[in-house]
């Protein structure tokens, strides 16, 4: 089986719903994640996309890279627009005998999800609209020049939280967005990463089957903002998972499942040292990050009913 798994990419559908010629940076992990999400969603999809990198790079007016219906919304109302589309589809079915099954998807970056769009997301999750929310988390406002967001990890240097003599960059921990989504008691919450195509596609497939809201949080590697080499995009995502910095798990009807667990997590240095945004960190800072990562990972392990190592 091991050797056969190498040929697994052959099984993925060849159809893409985001066309070439988009203006993403070379080595962009976010557009890669969007490719996988769209492959899994298929044609019968309407996307409402919050302002952010993905909107900028995919639709340089009068061009668009999208091959599914797509609406650009403001930062704060991607979920509200998705709610409206879903309600509109419902009305069409009720009044005009429309029968096609169309999935409504809202997309946003970490800023459009965890900072500015949080209220509309919360509202849409609470009202129980039948839609998927996908957050592409690249850990800062990359498109406008790497400003910190509430998803920027502890210790990262950004242009609005710069590292220097008096500061070590971002001094707050990453906001736990999946837990916030799960607190709405929705049926499906998951985290994934741009370096794991099959994981993303499986999770989107699962979310598609669910009637009601679901939330998927995808860590998207950003070589520009993380100041890493663009050919290391896939490696970087894998390291984030293997060091435990970004645990990949699902919450189905309140039940946690940890998708990737390791007998021994890699040390966080492996991940941090490859990125310019963490270059300034001292040994003490790294130790602090390591401790926090282990605590968080063990918390997820416990929630998933696993023994803590």
């Amino acid at each position, binding site marked *: 089986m091991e050797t056969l798994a*190498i*040929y697994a*990419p*052959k099984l*993925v559908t060849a159809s*893409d719903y*985001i*066309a*070439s*010629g*988009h*203006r*993403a*940076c*070379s*080595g*962009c*992990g976010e*557009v*890669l994640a969007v*490719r996988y999400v769209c492959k899994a969603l298929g044609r019968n999809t309407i996307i409402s996309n919050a302002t952010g990198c993905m909107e*900028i*790079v*995919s*639709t*340089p*007016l*009068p*061009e*668009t*890279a*999208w*091959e*599914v219906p797509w609406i*650009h919304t403001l930062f704060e109302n991607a979920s509200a627009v998705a709610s409206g589309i879903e309600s509109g589809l419902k009305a069409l079915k009720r009044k005009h005998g429309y029968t096609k099954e169309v999935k409504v998807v809202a997309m946003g970056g970490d800023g459009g999800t965890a900072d500015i769009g949080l209220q509309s997301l919360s509202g849409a999750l609470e009202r129980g609209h039948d839609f998927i929310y996908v957050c592409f988390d690249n850990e800062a406002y990359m498109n406008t020049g790497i400003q910190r967001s509430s998803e920027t990890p502890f210790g990262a240097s950004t242009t609005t939280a710069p590292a220097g003599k008096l500061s070590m960059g971002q001094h707050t921990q990453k906001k736990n967005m999946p837990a916030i989504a799960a607190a709405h008691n929705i049926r499906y919450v998951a985290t994934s990463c741009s370096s794991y*195509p099959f994981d993303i596609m499986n999770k989107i497939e699962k979310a598609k089957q669910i009637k009601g809201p679901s939330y998927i949080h995808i860590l998207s590697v950003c*070589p*520009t903002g993380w100041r890493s080499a*663009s*050919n*290391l*995009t*896939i*490696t970087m995502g894998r390291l984030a998972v293997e060091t435990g910095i970004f645990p990949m798990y699902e919450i189905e009807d309140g039940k946690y499942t940890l998708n990737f667990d390791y007998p021994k997590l890699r040390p966080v240095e492996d991940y941090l040292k490859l990125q310019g945004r963490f270059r300034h960190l001292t040994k003490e800072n790294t130790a602090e990050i390591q401790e926090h990562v282990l605590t968080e990972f063990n918390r997820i392990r416990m929630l998933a009913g696993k023994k803590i190592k």
Partner: protein
Amino acid sequence: MKKDTSIEIRWHGRGGQGAVTSAELIALAAIHEGKFAQAFPSFGPERRGAPVLAFNRIDAENPIRIRSGVVKPDIVVVLDPGLVTLINVTDGLKPGGCLVVNSTRSVEDLQQEFSGDWKLAVVDAASIARELLGVNIVNTTMVGAMVKAAEVVKFESLKAPLNERFGARASSNFEACMRAYNSTVISQITTTGTKKSKSFPMEKIPGWRELLVGCIVTEPGNTKKFGTGDWKSQHPVWDDKKCIKCGICSLFCPEGCIQPNEEGYYRANLFYCKGCGMCAHECWTQAIKMVEGT
């Protein structure tokens, strides 16, 4: 009216190559000498790998009031060898000015590309940067070459800004700068223009009258018409003997531009390929190599 004593410089590079840093270093060096100086990038939708511009203005006597981009430069510096044939880098270059190019080609060879009345300076900055810095980031190297070709600031004045900017890595950057200063080859070009001038690769933006109400785009996926291929400085090459046709390269391509050919071997569509190198890095059998050039 005051005598115009200002020198204007335009830097052509690719996003991530450090053209902006180069401009800043020159401005800092000029300020260090007691001159007035400006350094700024051009703002646009440029991303990593895309052709970008940065500008300098240096004035030995008068404060600089103008704030716009440089359209008639005295000096043009090209950080990426691929840009010479791609865009018209000498657009607006003043007669008697100077063009500084990073290239492995000889001066005689490069002369064929241009026409005008100015100096051409050539340096193999990529090799210098690779040898001394370990990476193909030529910003400091090209600063050395530029100062050699047109002495806008004294070479010694670069030392303080380099130390300030690069800290621990300042000495190797200074060495690269010096190597370039010493190895730049300069020649004079005096041919008159017969070459057709190419325009900047600016995207054509329609006016508001041409847009549909509500900014609707009626043609799905029409970015396909736009080639992002000129963003790259390296391109992937497949070794079919090593290829096992697994398709991992196709799956991990952010552009979605790697497709199998009739025999089932994979190839990148270089019209879109941005040269990120992810396919080469992720290939199980290392069948893909990144090769310089578009």
